């Protein structure tokens, strides 16, 4: 919408946006300042200069490093499980009659609407028993039930834009099912799969509640960070936050640069 530069509505919306972004980013700035602070007490005031001490403390912290390794392992397993499951679910839903697909969708997506602690507890209970130790596998399975549901929704939304005429034309021209799958359906779904990988990875990596209730005595980066923060502010965890934040900024930058707008959906109704 082209507007005159002195538009009061524009001024108000800019003001609101600025205030919102300040509110959103001030704590992140505070975390960064604390992480780089040279003082040995966790405080941003008085400022004693920049020092990478908390980052070297982090690198030498065996529990946090182990947590990080386990987080990466769990996230990779969750991606590897939830992508095929989400794709299979979406492909089945796409070809099912409306009523049946509604019921199936409700069942598959329900873990999104169930609190994480219930997902974590129930999965751990079923696969290990309460007295069982919990651990990485129950954590992977518990996270997968939620993450696969998100991946399913992404693939379902994409398939809703699929033009069936393409497939029919290919069949009419004598293409086999395998060829249609390989040359038409899968290429059409590829951008969604590419977007689903980082999203599934992040959903797993950043997860806290589901993990706490499924993992038992083991740890991921987030459960270890949560346990440390329970005791009070911790510059080492601030350093963890800064590292993850920096990776997030880089990833978002790449995403903004490579993003292409989705094709318009075929008109319905």
């Amino acid at each position, binding site marked *: 919408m082209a507007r005159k530069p002195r538009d009061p509505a524009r001024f108000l919306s800019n003001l609101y946006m600025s205030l919102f972004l300040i509110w959103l980013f001030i704590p992140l700035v505070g975390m960064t300042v604390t992480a780089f602070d040279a003082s040995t007490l966790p405080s941003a005031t008085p400022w004693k200069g920049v020092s990478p001490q908390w980052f070297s403390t982090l690198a030498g912290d065996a529990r946090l490093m182990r947590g990080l390794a386990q987080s990466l392992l769990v996230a990779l397993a969750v991606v590897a499980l939830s992508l095929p*499951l989400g794709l299979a679910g979406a492909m089945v839903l796409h070809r099912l009659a409306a009523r049946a697909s509604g019921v199936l969708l409700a069942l598959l997506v329900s873990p999104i609407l169930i609190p994480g602690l219930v997902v974590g507890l129930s999965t751990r209970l079923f696969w290990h028993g309460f007295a069982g130790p919990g651990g990485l596998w129950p954590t992977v399975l518990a996270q997968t039930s939620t993450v696969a549901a998100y991946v399913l929704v992404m693939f379902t939304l994409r398939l809703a834009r699929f033009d069936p005429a393409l497939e029919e034309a290919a069949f009419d021209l004598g293409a086999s099912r395998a060829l249609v799958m390989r040359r038409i359906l899968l290429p059409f779904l590829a951008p969604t799969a590419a977007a689903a990988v980082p999203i599934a990875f992040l959903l797993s990596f950043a997860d806290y509640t589901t993990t706490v209730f499924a993992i038992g005595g083991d740890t991921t980066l987030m459960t270890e960070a949560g346990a440390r923060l329970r005791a009070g*502010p911790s510059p080492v965890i601030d350093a963890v936050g800064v590292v993850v934040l920096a990776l997030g900024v880089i990833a978002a930058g790449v*995403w903004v640069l490579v993003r292409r707008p989705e094709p318009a959906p075929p008109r319905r109704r």
Partner: protein
Amino acid sequence: MAELLRAYGLRLTALLWLAVALWIIGLVIAPLATLVARSLTSVDPQSIVATIEVDRLSGELAAARWDFDHATTPERRVEIDRRIRLLADRLRRADARETAPQPTWGIANYTSLSGLPGGVLLRTLGQALAVTAIALLVGYPVAWLAAVVLTGRRAALLLGALIVPWAIGDVLRLCAWATLFDPPGAGIPAMVYGYGLAMVFPIWAALTTLDRHQIEAARDLGASALRIHTRIVLPHARPGLAVGAIMTFLLCAGSYAVPQITPRGRGGDGFGQQVARRIFDTADWGVGAAYALALMAACLLVAYALMRAFRLRWRDLARRGG
């Protein structure tokens, strides 16, 4: 089904159904059914009472024996010896009562919800509703600006600026929040910061499909800004508002991180902590399972109410994005 076979062939159809069946049974139905079954079994409380008593008496007996060894006068020794005999006798009887626990079926695990834990549940739900309302008020203008007013590079930048804080996860977001704000037990501001963005993304997604010509037409016809929002933008955003409200509410009501991190142990419990304590600290697994299911039921009820309030149909969830 015929449609499936026609499109994918027998082998692929079978493979797809196998994956879906494993998913539904192994990750959704069977775990929940096990949790329900566990919540309905309880161990005879008499044996738990006896277990606690055995623990207590063993401790007292050990202390008395230590006193006996360190007593200085003979009279005191006699006195402590009498006490040791008494304790040993009571310990034998408590031991006898502590038989192998016999599980019984019933709703006994749910009954303690009427006390303090039920109050914590209600407080947690109320808090989550308050956060949802605040996030709706704060988040709607942000989503509107990001989706409709801003264009091109600025819109992409803003979206990136919203996604990055969201992507680092609630623990690290609350870690950042806690470096600046340190009010014990102040749950609501921390929750708005922790989960408010969940409101923005669905509204943004719904508004990206809004045809801007509608707004321009309304403005040309003399509609006020308020009227444009109530008659055009808000109705179009409705599915997004519903999904955002449901997601924000669910994240807040089920949040383990906020009561864990922000009050630094000085504030009250959330309901998640109540469940964790039954499971991890006192090994009251049946009660923990019952509490978890009570939370789930409450959340599903509120989510259903929100869906009705925003007139959202179940299928829209998948069609509009969640």
